């Protein structure tokens, strides 16, 4: 799906829990997510902290969308 979105001309960022899969299928802008059962946040830390993590991840994703890349790039925090 990521590739078809990009092929259609819409920049896309993949927030993915399993980065190697994202790299294998061919996403170009990748943001590693937190964990498989909770990709955007961490409910174990309580709602506020979980949401803060989510906000930071989405901010990183937006930054990735605005960053020129020549090849597959993983945006670490």
């Amino acid at each position, binding site marked *: 799906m990521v590739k078809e979105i*990009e092929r259609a001309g*819409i920049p896309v960022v993949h927030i993915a829990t399993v980065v190697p899969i994202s790299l294998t299928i061919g996403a170009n802008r990748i943001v590693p997510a937190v964990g498989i059962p909770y990709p955007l946040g961490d409910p174990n830390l309580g709602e506020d902290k979980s949401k803060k993590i989510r906000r930071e991840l989405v901010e990183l994703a937006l930054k990735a969308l605005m960053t020129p890349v020549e090849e597959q790039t993983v945006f670490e925090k």
Partner: protein
Amino acid sequence: MSKTIIVHYINNFFAGAGGEEAAGMAPELREGAVGPGLALAEAFGEEYEIAATVICGDNYFGEHMEEATERILKLIRPYGPQLFIAGPAFNAGRYGVACGTIARAVEEQFHIPVLTGMYEENPGADMFRRDLIIIKTKNSAAGMRQAVRKMAAAGEKLAKGGEILGPEEEGYLERGIRVNYFHEKRGSERAVDLLVRKMRGEECTTEYPMPVFDRVPPLPPVDDVSKVKIAVVTSGGIVPQGNPDHIESSSATKYGIYSIKGMDHMDKADFMTIHGGYDRAFVTEDPDLVVPLDVLREMESEGVIGGLADYFITTTGTGTSTGNARGFGRDFVKKLLDDNIGAVILTST
């Protein structure tokens, strides 16, 4: 004993009817074997007869596909073929596409076995390898002798209803079909054998080749996300409560587009997860963990992003074939483009 009737399809060039200048030639029928058909007839032997050969220019076929197919089907019907062979086309692209198209049409129309041959990189190979037995050939007619031998062997099996073994054994292009069978050794033993062979530096062939993924060059970045509308797509299986469209919890065959209009977060009263590949407990409590609507709404009101689509797009990623996923993507991008979506955040569990 009556002979097995074969009809053969070749292009103008292999029929000796001229080269590129004759590529516009309309379908014609000749009695008996022509060109490579003579070698095929010899390889098939006494029990088989190439009763007729259809010849068509590659350009003619390419430019009038439907009409040419119809005409060719009409030409060969009176012969009542029991086996149809097209080519081999080697690396000739237009010829390969013609061979695949006509072979598939014959199979559908007459319900008889069909066979063609191509070089692996012939564009016709990727188009038809899933539907047809395509014998793997060299990239030029220099490989004719080998191609003919393999095609005759496979053709004989097909005509007699014999079991077609794997692509390696029979020499055809892999079709992406997996056939279950009982192996005399169990999987663990075979895995260890394979590992030992690998460690010894001996030849080791995987039992499960990974698919080859294509690549899309990265797009230039978004100038300013505060000026564009963003959409969320997910493979995390978030759906409205009750899963109205019955999206599968694994190996999905469909996706859904669901409204988030007027919502400031993903409420667990409205949404659930049906994903069969992860522990759903956390996301069931808070679907924002997969579709980050709460923070995107904040960013929207703060002007960090230009806007948010009124919907999100969703499916289940686990077990879903890359073919299906590609199909979903090709389908929903039309909507994203129509709605002037400037960037997508795709989340995966």
